[in-house]
């Protein structure tokens, strides 16, 4: 065993692996038009659509932009990320990756970092468009809190997406299962319309789920308020719990190999 390292050379380090994974996943997502449309076009559509229903005062504008940014982040880090995980797993890409010396932590951290970068870009584009469409006035000193809120929200929702990917059997069912989870959460979060119109108990529940605190943080950031410790705490707790739970639920191999084999044999008969 002593000569193993001499034969093998040096294993790639964690930091280098992480950086390569991040750039790899940036490239993959940028080349997938479906992923980009949902994360870039949807927030803009929301912005334009909701523009007609909100008031014309500065507070309404801020509310609207914050909501669109939150929606973009969740599309990217939850829907796009989890769908990719399921698709790559069912294609056998993850199985092959698992068979290399790559550390699973470097793989997932790199992939989530790429998601966070893209969420920031989507947020920036949303903000720029908001300036022209809605005429929101944004000061540069808000950038720090907004970036922090985007990063925390992205990492939390990506962790939740990673956790759920282990329970989704096929790429075809990914979109509907993910939508059933995040759309109701968004509707009761006060992101699209003020939560004052919802029953108090529902608001209470919602404040412990990962959408409402995310929306709150984003609104605080856009309004120039300090980020609330309670919301930061709830989001961080979700991120940690989902990340730890994923260690047990994460799957590297395609589901139901027997069925897949049957399909494979039929295909190869052509």
């Amino acid at each position: 065993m002593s000569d193993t390292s001499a034969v093998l050379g040096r294993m790639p380090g964690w930091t280098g692996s992480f950086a390569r994974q991040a750039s790899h996943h940036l490239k993959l997502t940028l080349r997938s038009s479906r992923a980009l449309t949902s994360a870039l076009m949807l927030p803009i559509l929301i912005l334009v659509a909701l523009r007609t229903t909100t008031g014309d005062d500065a507070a309404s504008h801020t509310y609207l932009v914050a909501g669109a940014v939150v929606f973009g982040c969740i599309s990217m880090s939850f829907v796009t990320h989890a769908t990719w995980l399921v698709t790559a797993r069912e294609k056998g890409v993850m199985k092959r990756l698992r068979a290399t010396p790559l550390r699973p932590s470097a793989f997932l951290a790199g992939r989530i970092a790429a998601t966070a970068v893209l969420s920031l870009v989507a947020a920036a584009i949303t903000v720029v468009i908001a300036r022209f469409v809605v005429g929101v006035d944004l000061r540069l000193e808000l950038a720090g809190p907004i970036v922090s809120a985007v990063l925390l929200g992205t990492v939390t929702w990506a962790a939740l997406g990673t956790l759920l990917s282990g329970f989704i059997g096929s790429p075809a069912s990914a979109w509907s299962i993910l939508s059933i989870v995040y759309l109701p959460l968004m509707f009761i979060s006060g992101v699209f319309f003020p939560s004052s119109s919802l029953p108090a108990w529902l608001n209470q529940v919602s404040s412990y789920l990962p959408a409402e605190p995310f929306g709150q943080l984003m609104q605080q950031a856009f309004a120039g308020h300090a980020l609330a410790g309670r919301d930061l705490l709830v989001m961080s707790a979700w991120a940690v719990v989902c990340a730890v739970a994923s260690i047990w639920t994460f799957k590297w191999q395609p589901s139901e190999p027997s069925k897949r084999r049957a399909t494979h044999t039929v295909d190869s008969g052509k």
Partner: protein
Amino acid sequence: MALISARGLTKSYGKHNAVTDVSFDIGEGETVAMLGPNGAGKTTTVEILEGFRERTRGEIRVIDEDPWHAPQRLRAQLGFVLQATSLEAELSVLETLQYYRALFPNPRPVDEVLAMVGLESEEKVRVGQLSGGQQRRVDLAVGIIGNPRVLFLDEPTTGLDPIARRQLWGAVRTLKAGGTTVLLTTHYLEEAQELADTIMVLSDGKLVAHDSPANIVQLFESETHITFRAKGDSTAALPTSLAESAETKDGLVTLKVGDVIPALKGLLAWADRHHSDLAGLTVNPASLEETYLNLIRQAEEGTAPPTKTTHRGADTHV
């Protein structure tokens, strides 16, 4: 010392055994083909060796490690071509190889690998735009980019056209010549014969033969089927030596014989006497499926086939 070894390897799903008490050794630099029909347990066996599945019983070692616990240093020495093509369509061939190359401590140069699989002129093309055969060669390129000591090929040419199949064989021969240990699963006898130093035949989860390609081929060609269309009750009058091996179904007589020449001589003489025209006469080796069934039967009856299952010195725990 064996680079891969299995002793009494068994995998059960509930009451069903997918693999039963399989033992073998594979030496460094050896190319071994695992041959068998669908559902014979080839993929299960290979996936256990690859570390993707946990065994129910038995001992296995791959480069002196237990693959189920697959430490990083073991994974750095293994290469894989999985049963289904597993690539990302959005990346070019070159990008794919550079990406996987960076995961290994002691990889091969990209140019060398591209040349081995014959994809130099496709390096800029996105994987999604390649043909099935070319994608399979990218799969192989990814499998060997890490410079593995052991390469697992799970049905690498299933579904490929003959030209693509030969190109892939060429790449595997180059690897063999370079000293890589290769474990290949296939349902094609021809493929096993072309590439392997040793062939293991799996059937119904059992290792029914383990021998050199020449001996295995002999085994597979040891039975010949002579068929012809019979008129009325004519088969009743067949010479006893042939009647024993005759099966009649829908007016079609099949003689399952070991020695073709005497059987044909006897048959022709008989046809002459009985004025039979032997309509639709065919002479074929027994089908692969039939040979597998024969091998299982022989293994179960204890009538040893002309091969040693313990060929490589593996102790069979029977």
